[in-house]
């Protein structure tokens, strides 16, 4: 008996999401169980079955470094903008 992870797609174009798992002695029966459990109301447009042992789970990247320079929230434009506008105002009044 093996565990098969089931991923389902709600509608075409949507991402596949993990839905649950089934236990089956082989891929054929795993397919039958997955269809019966996850799409008998046509609630899934498509299903993926993945043998659990085929999944390689990666550890999260350690947060040792400050990676804020890669993100939008790593920048605050407010002060710089104020300075730029103030400088422009002075230039115009001159």
């Amino acid at each position: 008996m093996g565990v098969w992870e089931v991923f389902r797609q709600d509608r075409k174009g949507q991402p596949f999401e993990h839905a649950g798992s089934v236990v089956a002695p082989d891929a054929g029966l795993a397919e039958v169980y997955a269809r019966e459990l996850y799409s008998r109301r046509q609630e899934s447009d498509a299903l993926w079955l993945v043998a659990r042992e085929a999944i390689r789970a990666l550890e999260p990247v350690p947060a040792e470094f400050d990676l804020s320079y890669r993100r939008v929230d790593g920048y605050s434009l407010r002060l710089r903008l104020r300075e730029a506008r103030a400088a422009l105002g002075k230039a115009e009044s001159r």
Partner: protein
Amino acid sequence: MDARTQEFLEHVQSGGQVETADWMPDEYRARLIKFIEMHAGSELMGVLPERDWILRAPTLQRKLALTAKIQDEVGHAQLIYRVVEDLGKPREACLDDLLSGKAKFHNVFHYPTKSWGDVGVIAWLVDAAAIISQKALLKCSYAPYARIMKKVCWEESFHVLHGRDVVLALVNGTPAQRELVQEALNRWWPPLMQFHGNPIPAEEDPSYIWRIKSQANEDARQQFLDGYVPQIWELGLTVPDPKLRHDEATGVWHYSEPDWEELRAVVTGHGPASAERIAFRALSRENVAWVRKVVLAEAA
């Protein structure tokens, strides 16, 4: 309590969730298994009262709908037992414990059904009471269980709707049909009021302390009364409790004290249909043992 357990407890109490591979205290794992196994067993045993009515459903459409509901409930048992298996208890062990009485199932599945009115009232009100508990499990600290609840709640809402449709058909029918609903309501009301358990404060409930549940028993019962008593009254039906009233000022429902002794006796296997249901489950398991053998042999 050691520091690691204390840290874990704070994590779940502040809304944190846990995955299968994460470290968890033994007590948390044991409580999860007991709680989730009881839920799975209830789904499995819950189909038996309804199964009795497949052959007696009044129309083909009702027969199809009832069969679909039963398949949903068995499907829920499959999904939920999977969660228990991943926590370390094999399904065969769960089924053994269900038959020996070591594992419990919900009180409402220990009672007999007498008429088609019961089928409507069960699907409408028993499933409604169950949805309230299950919706609160969407926030369960154990994430794989919480995720499965999304699908379970979605399907239960179909059951409640179909149950209400059955009840409406009967109350719109002859006086005798209407009487079937009232009789069924009279039969099911006491177990329904016991369903969410005794009103122990959330802070003393281990399932709440570990955030397996996210709501106190009494909150669930009040939510049930809030949602469904007006729907019952709207149909001209009578709730068989002379003390039932809604305090408009506090928003609290008052009712006669449910029989907690009966609840305790029933869930420990002393309900009017407990022995018969467990014997039938044992018979079904025995009857399909050959299927399991064939499937496993073919795959080997």
